[in-house]
């Protein structure tokens, strides 16, 4: 794993929804090596543990990364206080990202809630071969839909309460598309129940599926064994670590 730790300038900050922020960070050496599905580990002033946040955009030319995160507790609230021009302390890029296979002709990318950001760079990688399904609680929680559309992908929006897009869960359109056939791969990030549902549909339909998991982390690089995740590899139980072996896993490897 090639990563660095450093203080990088925040080139841009926008509030994109209630308590959800988008940072564009100037970090050429990180952007140069970052892949979709990887994450950055951000220091929050006054807190012992860093906060893992997925990479939501990689601009190798400009040397920038984009992250989108929600204030969930004290650490993310502290990070959200940083402004354009401030330095952000990151350990990055970390983890094992999504498998991008140029031979695939049609892939489905599914993001649920604050799990949508990591799907954006992957959608960009697949462009018009991708169908990007996003699910949110309600219309006011919807984020990144313009960005997804700009990738050239087909986009499908769902909300739990029907206040925007389709009324229902992301698994509904997925099921329909999966049953129609012709899907090479499904990638997903979001809450556990959603991921389980997605994995089950893919299994049923024999579609390759990768999911991005979350776990509480300390080191972020595989040294502390803090972020264990039970998986199966070569028919043997394998205690994987989300920060190093993941966050992206093949769905069939995960012991739920």
């Amino acid at each position: 794993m090639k990563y660095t730790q450093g203080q990088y300038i925040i080139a841009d900050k926008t509030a994109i929804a209630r308590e959800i922020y988008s940072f564009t960070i100037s970090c050429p050496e990180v952007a140069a090596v970052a892949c979709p599905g990887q994450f950055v580990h951000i220091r929050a002033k006054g807190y012992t543990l860093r906060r893992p946040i997925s990479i939501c955009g990689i601009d190798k030319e400009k040397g920038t990364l984009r992250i989108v995160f929600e204030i969930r507790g004290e650490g993310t609230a502290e990070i959200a206080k940083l402004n354009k021009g401030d330095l952000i302390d990151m350990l990055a890029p970390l983890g094992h990202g999504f498998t991008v296979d140029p031979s695939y002709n049609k892939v489905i990318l599914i993001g649920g809630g604050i799990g949508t950001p990591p799907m954006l760079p992957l959608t960009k990688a697949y462009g018009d071969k991708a169908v990007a399904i996003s699910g949110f609680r309600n219309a006011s929680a919807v984020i990144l839909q313009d960005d997804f559309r700009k990738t050239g992908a087909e986009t499908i929006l769902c909300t739990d309460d029907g206040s925007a897009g389709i009324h229902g869960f992301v698994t509904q359109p997925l099921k329909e598309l999966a049953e129609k056939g012709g899907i090479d791969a499904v990638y997903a990030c979001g809450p556990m129940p959603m991921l389980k549902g997605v994995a089950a549909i893919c299994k049923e339909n024999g579609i390759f599926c990768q999911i991005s998991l979350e776990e509480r982390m300390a080191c972020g690089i595989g040294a502390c064994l803090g972020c264990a995740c039970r998986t199966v590899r070569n028919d043997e139980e394998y205690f994987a670590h989300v920060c190093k072996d993941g966050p992206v896993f093949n769905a069939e490897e995960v012991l739920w």
Partner: protein
Amino acid sequence: MADLSVKVCGVDFKNPIIPASGVFGYGREYEELFPLDKLGGIATKGTTLHLRTGNIAPRIAETPSGMLNSVGLQNPGIDHFIETELPYLLTKDLVVLANIAGSTPDECAEVAAKLEDTDVHMIELNISCPNVKQGGAAFGTSCEMAAEVTKRVRAVTKKPLVVKLSPNVTSIADIAKSVEAAGADAVSLINTLLGMRIDINTGRPILHNNVGGMSGPAVFPIAVRMVWQVANAVKIPVIGMGGVSSGRDAIELMMAGASAVQVGAAIFTDPYAPVKIVEEMNDWLDSKGIASVNDIIGTVKPW
């Protein structure tokens, strides 16, 4: 440039700073950031006779100025360590402390015996892990058990034997005296303090193990007190740790009586912490005109 080298039970350290067991794996992950030979030593992840998968996640929780962990001694077993990790570490210019643990005194001795034919520099016997049901903390909380397991390991090894003590006791000085009498060449302290956090929204403990070991800056004053008490109670050297996150902290712990200092949780906040601590110690010593770090060990003048 002050002289930062220290000698602990006959082993030379180029500087007194050692990443603590469990936070630094076997060093490989951090090599991406700096060469390991900037460090005085490394205490490797606690290793048992056989592979252990550890506890179920979540294993990490945050606390004010600290953290809890309940990794539960996940490790690939001593054979894997000896075959795969140790040879690599021994190519580096630093002292390797093999941290070992076991569910019974016998198991601890068996693990130590396996290390006898290796070139590992020191053994750090962990009698204080709060995250495993058997052995672990139980050994470290009674003088008799602590002495018993130390004796058994002592019997099978001529390597410098460091016994790592638990802070979750009424008198850590008494435990230290017991392991000294049982043949320990040094003691290291403190391991983590047993703590708990609850997610009030789910009504569940954050850690799947319910409780976990607390470390980080929050515990530093307890570490200073215990190092001071133990250094005054035993004649063998003390390796201090617990919440150290700066050169000043390391100096404070050495003034309290530590001959070397381990750095744990601070590495999660800043992976360069051990390297920066070495630099900060050097700068401070220079600014005071103190020629050698040995001149500060145990120098605190109580009122």
